[in-house]
């Protein structure tokens, strides 16, 4: 057993850290931990794309750097510790792996390179008003008419649909039989006539989410990924794919570090043993999560499937993100109460804390609520 990164990996870390130090622009480092403006986010992603580091989990043949799992983890850690936001996951971590596995050659050629360069932005069309935790009961219909599908339906909770060039959608191509069957995976250009976006403002006061209405949207059949009816298999593949950064450990270290600094700067809080204890419990919990995450990384790096230790990463990770933001808000006291204040204030940890606290309530809901996660785990435990 050896808990230290290899000399090569440490050298790699030093390289990434130096690059981040020189290249993360001040206005991109969203100290409140929620996505910033479209322009700054896109500029940052294109900068990474130009460096060849945007699609950091991809092999070289598709425009990624071809890093090992450990390098990917180190990169994401250094990104977070530099205060830079995560890159939009929809093209990178969701569609990318799907196309590499299920896409045909033409689809790979067409769609992967622009994602890796940061030139085309994707969103995800999974959830529907009646299909949240019970995703398989989705109703959006795609009816084939010659060389097109005609798509009708409604998607909801579509993150950054208003930024996106494309959406990948689960649609029902066959209304008969068990509900998991008859679902297909379609790529749709957001510029297609019949697509309407309605913004949903979330409780952090920002516009990240949308409803997407599809009315007689014509989608070329070559935009079908895999076979008709294979959509559920593809969706499940995606859900189990990403395990080494799902816990958000580095982002939590970054936020906890900012809280530590803010407390140290405060003459009263820094002398309060109750506050000291609260920060220590958060840090200890974060260490437990970190080493659990590293155990998973070690398995993945060795080409093994993630072990049972990985099961709790999302649950514990989101709980901890929420607990840290709650501590930021509460220790901020009255100073955390101003709402949606001007940008210059947001860069103190307490001023942005309330928005982060609100924003992060979604973290235990999206991608399968923590309750659903526990149902799944209970099955693994054969209950």
């Amino acid at each position: 057993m050896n808990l230290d990164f290899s000399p090569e990996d440490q050298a790699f870390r030093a390289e990434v850290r130096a690059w981040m130090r020189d290249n993360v622009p001040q206005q991109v480092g969203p100290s409140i931990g929620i996505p910033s403006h479209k322009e700054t986010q896109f500029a940052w992603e294109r900068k990474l794309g130009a460096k060849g580091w945007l699609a950091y989990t991809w092999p070289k043949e598709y425009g990624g750097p071809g890093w090992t799992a450990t390098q990917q983890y180190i990169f994401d850690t250094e990104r977070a510790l530099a205060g830079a936001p995560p890159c939009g996951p929809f093209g990178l971590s969701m569609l990318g792996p799907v196309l590499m596995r299920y896409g045909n050659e033409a689809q790979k050629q067409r769609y992967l390179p622009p994602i890796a360069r940061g030139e085309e932005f994707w969103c995800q069309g999974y959830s529907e008003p009646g299909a949240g935790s019970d995703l398989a009961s989705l109703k959006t219909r795609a009816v084939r008419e010659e060389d097109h599908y005609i798509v009708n339906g409604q998607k909801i909770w579509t993150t950054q649909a208003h930024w996106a060039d494309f959406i990948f959608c689960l649609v029902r191509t066959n209304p008969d039989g068990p509900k998991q069957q008859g679902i297909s995976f379609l790529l749709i250009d957001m510029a297609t006539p019949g697509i309407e976006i309605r913004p949903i403002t979330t409780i952090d006061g920002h516009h990240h989410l949308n409803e997407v209405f599809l009315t007689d949207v014509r989608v070329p059949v070559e935009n079908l990924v895999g076979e008709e009816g294979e959509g559920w298999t593809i969706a499940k593949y995606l859900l189990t794919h990403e395990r080494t950064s799902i816990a958000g450990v580095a982002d939590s270290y970054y936020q906890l570090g900012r809280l530590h600094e803010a407390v140290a700067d405060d003459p009263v809080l820094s002398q309060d043993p109750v506050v000291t204890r609260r920060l220590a419990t958060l840090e200890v919990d974060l260490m437990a999560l970190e080493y659990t995450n590293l155990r998973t990384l070690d398995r993945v790096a060795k080409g093994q499937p993630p072990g049972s230790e990985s099961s709790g990463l999302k649950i514990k990770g989101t709980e901890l993100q929420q607990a840290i933001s709650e501590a930021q808000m509460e220790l901020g006291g009255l100073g955390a109460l101003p709402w949606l204040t001007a940008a210059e204030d947001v860069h103190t940890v307490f001023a942005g804390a309330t928005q982060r606290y609100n924003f992060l309530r979604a973290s235990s809901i999206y991608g399968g609520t923590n309750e659903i996660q526990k149902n799944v785990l209970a099955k693994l435990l054969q209950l």
Partner: protein
Amino acid sequence: MDFSYSQEQKMLRESADKFANKGYGFERYKSTLELPGHCDSTLWSQMAELGWLGLPLPEEAGGLGGSALDVSQICEPLGSGMVLEPYIASAVLPGRLLSLCEADTDLLGELAGGEAQFAVAWAEPDSREDPACCTTRAQADGDGYVLSGHKQCVLNAPNATTLIVSARTSGGDHDADGISLFAIDPQSAGLALRPYPVMGGGYAADIRIDQLRVGADAMIGSAGNGFAPLDAALDHATAAACAQALGAMNALLERTREYLRMRKQFDKPIGSFQVLQHRLVDMFIEVEQSRSMVMMSSVRVESAEPAVRRRAVSAAKAYLGQASKFVAQQAVQLHGGIGVTEELDVGHYFRQLSAFGSLYGSREYHLRRFAATPSE
């Protein structure tokens, strides 16, 4: 021992229920958020007409001489109806404070009539929630005073026609003795307000006071004796805020219960899942325990014994500080996606209860104060 409400209290509550849940509602709340200062003057006048603004004031001053328990019967419905009008900041807190200081009845009359709006400026960036910590200084100067200092998060200050400011005329920064209170026109030279909306709605301001000159008649009560009435009035405001939070908690409980019964996933109501059932039970128990604490503190805040008053109010605020966060977080969680949006009132209650946690003393402040106050 008797936990029942009087006929008058039931009538107050009924009237407030009607105002908040029928006359107000989510649409009115959202449109009020569009108004400057998040304040709707027609509603304020209505509150004056209903007698609510004068409720906390003594009869001698044209008020109704209402008890804290009476006030709580207004505040709980205001909370369940998410009414944004600054009833506590602009009526309960300054009303109690002026009454306790035996301030002149003109000010009280304006308050009761709804012509004036008030804001009490006591918190400071370094005061850590303790009204005895006051670094704002009032230097005697001829027949008046010159004030300098910095006040933080003064609720309703942007709407106020009169500010009541605590400033030290003697003593050290942390002494209870030596604090005086001044009624100040917010337009005065030497005052700089930085207004902002507060999470959950309502406006506040940070205030810089720089060599502000006031006459001797600006002083409310007697010199150096401002702490006792300020502390007591803040306890009244805190008890009222707890009642208001209870209203919001109960509204969230009801909405979540309805949602669990109505919303289907996997072909059955999500309320049939045992884990969600127990979660709602936990919320229910927290609401009931919080209700007990609101009753208790609304009665005990009237105690002539400061230690009894402080322990009661601090216990209630500490308890509700935690319970309200639990109820709000679970309400959002159980509503899933729709719970984290601004489209449903659930998310707005959530923000209001989050703000409640930091206003009128955090849980940590009140636990400290509770522990530091001897029980007998």
